[in-house]
């Protein structure tokens, strides 16, 4: 035992307190212009961070109003139209302006070039342009939402959106259409970077798993976003000029829209979840000081999800009058797409085996991700069963299911990643106590908010209901109470993370003892990331201290 080769992680010397380097990307230049015209991926990531955080707060405010309204069965707080506009705003903002961009553009932008050992992304100017496109799209959408609003839901189902809605449908879809280009450019940039900019020695199978999942995500963004853009344009064309595409009165087919919409919107769920899975793979290995269990399986599972994710869209339409055969095919394919996700969950769990597990804040969030994502995935299996979907489709069961995936999954992982790389991004440590407390509050608040919604859904409470039968009240009050806890959990990090910028301890280059290239450079990193081009000689997670011939 004792004479085993010690490799990988070596504990940092405790004697010298870590210091912040004198010049880094944050202080190399000052002024508004130095930020708004920057091509540094790290500064652009910070710009994105500010934008998506503001949008998350707006989307969260809409959710708060929704949950407050649902405290009483008669919905006394809000008029029906206002309620409908609020859940539409919540969905539109959260899906397109938070969940889709958040991990790729904030953490991906900051970390991806450093993980491959590059100075920047392949196209730094394109990166800045995509932030501007995103911001312009966001502002147009926000303007449409605030100046009158839109009441179609985030799904824009036709023919409601093309002929019945009397709200700002066209400005909203223009905003979403524009921001789609930002997704496409980001995807393009990541793919080019991963192909062309990897450090010497970083072969595909030496890439950290976050890069595999970012690659898969980028492919989806590139292939799926144009379909959404097209579908939204067609909605606009029919609405503005009465050209019959979806409205049966004009000779169109309303179900065609659903096919186009879900052909984008199902894969886009994996745009939200895949980078989240990448983050979790980084964190689980780091805090259990073990290599990932089954690198190849986890890496290819990302690719599998990206491919199969394109083949299951019509499971959103099981009760939309599709043929029995088509429903059966899409049900079977939906089960298939569950397999790679299951592989990942089992492999993360196996990674913990015989590890040296420490429960720092990022690890708490990552473990929370595995628990909640697993529940989201398992309830997805229930929905893929045609017989059960028939009952719970369009009810709160669906709401609970996809919030487990998107909030319990993506947002938990984003919080994990933000806390994991925050010392790298800012050079500062945040409050250990408050951050662990917020992880706990978010986990508990989340469960309390969304677990009752499964029960509500099976009872039959439809989604998007402004008023509801009185017997559903207690479960709704429980959900709203949970949401208030969740809100506290999300506001807390805002406070201690900002606080850490001024009063946090210096983090040092590698506070977690992690192996990735991004940790081999000072925190915050210098403007060009690395003083010397790093050379990679081993796999990504060489944490183990003992040499063991594998149990193949």
């Amino acid at each position, binding site marked *: 035992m004792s004479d085993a080769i010690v490799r990988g992680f070596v504990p940092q010397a405790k004697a010298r307190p870590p210091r912040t380097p004198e010049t880094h990307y944050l202080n190399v230049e000052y002024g508004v212009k130095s930020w708004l015209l920057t091509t540094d991926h790290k500064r652009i990531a910070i710009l994105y961070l500010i934008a998506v955080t503001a949008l998350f707060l707006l989307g969260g405010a809409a959710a708060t109003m929704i949950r407050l309204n649902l405290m009483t069965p008669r919905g006394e707080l809000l008029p*029906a139209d206002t309620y*409908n506009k609020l859940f539409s705003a919540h969905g539109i903002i959260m899906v397109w302006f938070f969940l889709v961009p958040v991990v790729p553009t904030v953490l991906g932008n900051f970390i991806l070039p450093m993980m491959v050992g590059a100075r920047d992304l392949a196209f730094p100017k394109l990166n800045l342009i995509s932030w501007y496109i995103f911001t312009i799209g966001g502002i147009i959408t926000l303007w449409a939402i605030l100046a009158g609003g839109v*009441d179609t839901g985030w*799904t824009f189902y036709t023919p*409601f959106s093309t002929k*019945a809605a009397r709200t700002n449908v066209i400005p909203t879809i223009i905003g979403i259409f524009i921001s789609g280009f930002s997704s496409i450019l980001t995807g393009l940039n990541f793919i080019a970077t991963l192909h062309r900019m990897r450090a010497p020695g970083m072969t595909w199978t030496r890439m950290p798993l976050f890069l595999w999942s970012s690659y898969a995500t980028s492919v989806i963004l590139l292939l799926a976003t144009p379909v959404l853009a097209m579908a939204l344009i067609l909605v606009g064309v029919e609405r503005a000029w009465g050209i019959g595409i979806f409205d049966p*009165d004009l000779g169109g087919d*309303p179900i065609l829209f659903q096919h186009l919409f879900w052909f984008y919107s199902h894969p886009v769920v994996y745009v939200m979840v895949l980078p989240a899975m990448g983050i979790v793979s980084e964190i689980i290995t780091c805090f259990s000081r*073990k*290599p990932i*269990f*089954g690198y190849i*399986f986890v890496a290819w599972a990302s690719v599998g999800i990206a491919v199969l994710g394109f083949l299951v869209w019509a499971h959103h339409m099981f*009760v939309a*009058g599709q043929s029995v055969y088509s*429903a*059966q095919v899409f049900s079977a394919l939906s*089960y298939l797409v*569950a*397999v790679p996700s299951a592989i990942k*969950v*089992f492999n993360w*769990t*196996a990674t*913990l*085996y*015989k*590890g*040296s*597990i420490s429960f720092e804040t990022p690890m708490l969030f990552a473990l929370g991700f*595995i628990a909640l994502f*697993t*529940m989201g995935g*398992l309830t997805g*299996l*229930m929905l*893929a*069963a*045609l*017989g059960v*979907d*028939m*009952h719970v*489709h*369009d009810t709160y069961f669906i709401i609970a299911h996809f919030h487990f995936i998107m909030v319990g999954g993506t947002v938990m992982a984003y919080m994990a990643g933000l806390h994991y790389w925050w010392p790298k991004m800012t050079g500062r440590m945040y409050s250990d106590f408050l951050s662990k407390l917020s992880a706990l509050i978010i986990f508990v608040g989340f469960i309390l908010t969304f677990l009752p919604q499964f*029960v509500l859904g*099976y009872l*039959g409470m*439809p989604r*998007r*209901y402004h*008023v509801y039968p009185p*017997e559903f009240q*207690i479960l709704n009050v429980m959900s709203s109470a949970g949401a208030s806890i969740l809100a506290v959990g999300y506001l807390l990090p805002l406070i201690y993370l900002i606080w850490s910028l001024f009063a946090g301890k210096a983090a040092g280059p590698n506070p977690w003892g992690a192996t990735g290239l991004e940790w081999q450079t000072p925190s915050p990193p210098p403007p060009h990331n690395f003083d010397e081009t790093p050379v990679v000689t081993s*796999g990504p997670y060489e944490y*183990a201290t*003992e040499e*063991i011939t*594998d149990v*193949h």
Partner: protein
Amino acid sequence: MNAIFADVPLFPERASTTAYQVDALFFFLCAVCGGMAVLVAALLLYFSFKYRRRGEDDRTPRITGNHRLEWFWTIAPLFVFVVMFVWGAKIYTSVSEPPPDAMEIFVIGKQWMWKFQYPGGERAIENLYVPVDQPIKLTLASEDVIHDFFVPAFRTKIDVIPGRYVQIWFRPTKVGEYHLFCSQYCGTNHSQMIGKVFVVERDDFRKYLDGRKATGSLADQGWQLFLKFQCNTCHSSNAEARAPVLEGLANNMVTLNNGKKVRADDGYLRESILNPEEKVVQGWQPIMPTYKGQANEEDIIKLLAYIKSLKPGQTPSRNENSSPPLDAPRVPPKEKIEPGDRKPPYQPEGQNGKP
């Protein structure tokens, strides 16, 4: 505390044969998925406790995987998934095939109400009465946007899509009063597009229908519309008829003028009234004007009921006294029929009154 929760339902009532099937599958899924969730949670907790960091110099083994184990947990779920898939597909398929003895009720959704039409011509809004232990087939249409007919106690729902008919069936098993929800978002008062389904004993159902005082069965009402829209100007059995005779047409195969064969089901008949040029029967000219805007969904359901009831020799003869339908080419009258000569062209067989 108990007092508060006493009235809180945690599980929906079961009032149809489908409900029992769906619940059985749901319990199976809960057991399997719950078991998996407990397994993953237990492993996470156990490993987290057992392998917690005890010191900075902890040693960790370099385990990079185990292919046999990984293939096992890649393949094994597939077997479980096959069971879930087949079971779910079986229920779904059985719900899409109504039994032959099902009673048909027509449902029309519009912002923001449900309308019901019984075969005897009785109409209702909001509340649907159905007899217990009788298979009910619903044919649903929408007058505006997509709605969704959802009765949680029956565990069944279907999107009601404008521009087509959709069908669903159920067999109520328990007398009672159940929620009917619109579960596809349809605008301002979506959450108030609700109603009740009353499952009643057969006798009560008969009394209910008697109390609705219909002015003739659906087919009778359709016959009146058939005359009002002057369909018989062209769809007549005369030699100079401009359009095919409709007797015995419903649910039989027809050959179109592009050679294709289609079944003249409800959807085809509906389309042929609203969009007549789309699928013209072989040997006829596309001269029929559309009735879009003149006949609403309710009218079309009546016309369909009439067309389906039409037996050989029952087509009303042409009515020369009134003008042909809008846009229709004029057919020069060949012979005059004296008004007094006309027999009542159609004798409804229903017991619910005569036109």
